């Protein structure tokens, strides 16, 4: 009984972890991409540099979602509260 309760709670918690972790980086990446497009439109010759910086900062923002994903994965596959 307790185990099934823990399992259900873990599945919901995993979904919530990934879902909420996706919000912030989504907004951030949108902002960054918009600014980058603006920068390229204003100064098309700097496109290569802007793209490199953009991809690098995308990876940093993505890492935040990935932390949520790691939490979700450990809840699903390596749950410390079961057994």
């Amino acid at each position: 009984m307790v185990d099934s309760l823990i399992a259900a709670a873990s599945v919901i918690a995993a979904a919530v972890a990934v879902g909420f972790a996706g919000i912030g980086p989504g907004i951030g990446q949108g902002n960054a991409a918009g600014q980058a497009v603006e920068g390229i439109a204003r100064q098309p010759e700097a496109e290569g540099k802007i793209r490199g910086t953009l991809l690098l900062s995308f990876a940093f923002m993505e890492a935040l979602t990935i932390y949520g994903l790691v939490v979700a994965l450990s809840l699903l596959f390596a749950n410390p509260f079961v057994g």
Partner: protein
Amino acid sequence: MISTILLSKIEVGSHFYFFFPNGSHFHLETLLVSSLVISLLSIFVFISTKNLQNVPTNLQNFAEVLYDFVKNIAFTQLGPSYYKQFLPFVATIFFFVLGSNWAGALIPWKIFELPQGELSAPTNDINTTACLAILTSITYFFAGFKIKGLGYFKRYIKPSVFLLPINIIEDFTKPLSLNFRLFGNIVADELTVSVLCSLVPLIVPIPIMVLGIFASSIQALIFATLSSAYIAEVIE
């Protein structure tokens, strides 16, 4: 139906353990693939630099392009006076991470059957990424002590004294975030591909696979850039 599901069975955290007589054990599949990556990289470097010429030919050309790339990573972070000292470390990290990520993505490991777990990228195992992250923090401690001596500890009370606990915590969160970033990205990519494969085994996963190859090369770049940035922060 059953065979389709078994074809892309999703396995997370199951490893092929190899036990020593004294009870210690390690993940054999991680060790196998990472030693393959290391030996391939060593063979490439050995062959491409065997007889160096003033006017480079094919393989030496390629090696020089790679060298320029990692030199730029170290140079932009560490500056002209220190980059040579830490270039070997940054280059090693970059090529090992890139090689292991791509070894997991490009080689069809499903051909080989293991009794438990499966052959995949060594960075798929959290122990590999933790080792790389801890190596990074050891390196920046060493760099700080070597270049600044005991003045290194001034860094902890740099903006003001009451930031001391935050500066100490930062020393732990840096390797932690490096570790989880690389591990999570690789696992997330493989998980996405295997979930898609179990839903639609044809064509549909291919764009995600290509995206995965791109993302894993970016991750190698990020890891190398961040480790050189951490070193630069200490020795500035």
